[in-house]
């Protein structure tokens, strides 16, 4: 015999009055037998005039097929409808219901009604977000957007990354992001340090070369942002890489334009000053010597006057080419003034400075420079050489200038070492 605590009829009624989902017991013809307030609230909001005596009548606008579904259900008990979504429009609002229907036995049916409007709206928003992201991944160019795990393993692959990198999903599933930053490349960033920093401060940005599938390189700006879960724990990262190769090329180009003399391809005077100061700094830091040669074309004005400026330009270009091919790669050729050039020879001391200057002088003196009309031109240069000795860059330049004048005064086509 049952001897536990009893539940009063009133408690059961209260329980049903307060049940937050709609429950309806009805007969095959739709006649409502029992209905709780939650169900009546839902049905009344759909059909305010209905007396709630027949569930089919209350749901006719949303589920006109309901009587047919029930009639065609040929098992004696079981689920007729399982959480079907019904959409209703009432009072300018869209209401989404979830309907489940069960046959209990011959003429006893139970329906569960839930207002899932909010859930449906959330799903709709989620779906819209997904569509948005899909559209971004599908159509965005020059960007790769993907997620990685805490260890840098790529766990999501989409069209944006495919287009960006050339790799297809199947080829790189589960690979590390270091696919883009080969560890053997000295320019690759330290990935674990980057990820640790992103985890610590939320986001890091890095710019540099990345490898693509065909082993070409692209210059990219990459932002790695920590992805916290609902509890604020970082579970991975979003990576957004932007292909900036074109911009990088343009920047390099601009830099070149700003530092190089457009006529001859030698460095311009401004960049010459920068490089001169850098040599001074290196000498002060590492004690590495260098030599400065100031070179001037002899009687250049006469060439211009006699053969025209075009011929003069040709001479200047030929001279720079001759210097560059005679000197080492690390030596620096600067167009210092009109027909005056500064040659910086890193690591070169007094003796070698004079030898090198002499070699340059001889090579130039031996050149035959073809011009448009007339026989090839021949030129000579005078060179003043100086090696810094605890002085300022200005003083060094003045000493080489004095030496250059001495070379001119000594008959030109000469090298003079500053005392």
């Amino acid at each position: 015999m049952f001897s536990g605590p009893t539940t009063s009829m009133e408690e059961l009624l209260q329980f049903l009055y307060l049940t937050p989902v709609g429950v309806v017991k009805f007969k095959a013809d739709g006649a409502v037998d029992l209905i709780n307030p939650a169900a009546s609230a839902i049905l009344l909001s759909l059909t305010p005039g209905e007396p709630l005596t027949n569930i089919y009548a209350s749901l006719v606008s949303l589920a006109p097929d309901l009587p047919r579904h029930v009639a065609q259900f040929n098992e004696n008990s079981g689920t007729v409808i399982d959480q079907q979504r019904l959409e209703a429009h009432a009072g300018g609002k869209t209401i989404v219901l979830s309907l489940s229907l069960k046959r209990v036995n011959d003429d006893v049916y139970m329906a569960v009604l839930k207002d899932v409007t909010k859930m449906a709206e959330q799903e709709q928003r989620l779906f819209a977000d997904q569509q948005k992201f899909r559209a971004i991944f599908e159509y965005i160019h020059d960007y790769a957007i993907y997620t990685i795990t805490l260890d840098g393993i790529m766990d999501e692959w989409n069209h944006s990354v495919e287009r960006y990198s050339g790799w297809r999903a199947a080829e790189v599933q589960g690979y590390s992001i270091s696919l883009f930053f080969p560890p053997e490349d000295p320019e690759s960033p330290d990935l674990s340090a980057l990820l640790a920093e992103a985890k610590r401060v939320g986001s890091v940005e890095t710019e540099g070369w990345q490898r693509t599938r065909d082993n070409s390189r692209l210059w990219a700006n990459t932002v790695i942002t920590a992805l916290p879960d609902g509890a604020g724990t970082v579970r991975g990262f979003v990576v957004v890489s932007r292909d900036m190769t074109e911009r990088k090329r343009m920047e390099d180009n601009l830099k070149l334009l700003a530092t190089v003399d457009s006529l001859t391809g030698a460095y311009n005077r401004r960049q010459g000053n920068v490089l001169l100061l850098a040599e001074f700094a290196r000498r002060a830091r590492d004690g590495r010597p260098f030599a400065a040669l100031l070179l001037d074309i002899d009687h250049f004005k006469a060439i211009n006057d006699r053969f025209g400026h075009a011929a003069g330009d040709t001479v200047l270009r030929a001279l720079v080419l001759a210097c560059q091919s005679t000197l080492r790669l690390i030596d620096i050729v600067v167009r210092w003034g009109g027909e005056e050039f500064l040659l910086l020879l890193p690591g070169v001391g007094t003796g070698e400075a004079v030898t090198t200057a002499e070699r340059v002088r001889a090579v130039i003196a031996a050149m035959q420079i073809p011009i448009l009309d007339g026989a090839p031109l021949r030129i000579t240069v005078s060179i003043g050489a100086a090696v810094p000795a605890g002085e300022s860059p200005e003083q060094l330049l003045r000493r080489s200038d004095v030496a250059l004048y001495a070379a001119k005064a000594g008959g030109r086509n000469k090298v003079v070492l500053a005392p």
Partner: protein
Amino acid sequence: MEAIMGWAFNDPGLLAKLEAADDTTLDTAPFGVVAMAIDGKVTSYNAAESRLSGLSPSSVIGRHFFSDVAPCTNNYLVAHRFETEPTLDISIDYVFTLRMRPTSVRLRLLNQPGHQRMFLVVERV
């Protein structure tokens, strides 16, 4: 008592009578009466209403009527009107799920500024 009060659902002076009545007097009404404080908490639940719903006054009094007792009235037709209209005297046809049976009723919603209580009157059709 009933005769003395002369209870009638459509009585234009019903609000004044309800206001003046104590619980014992309210129990003599042939229709359900729910009295609520301004915040919606039940202060009186008369015998007729108790019979209709199957809930005893002691289990209802002190609880919020629209959310805790009769959620099917927590909508723009009933609760919203009490919450937004300080002067209210309107009758509407409604369906209650009394003891889970769909029951057609007539409701009269009564409220007046300055009064301590508002009333929901329920009559079976």
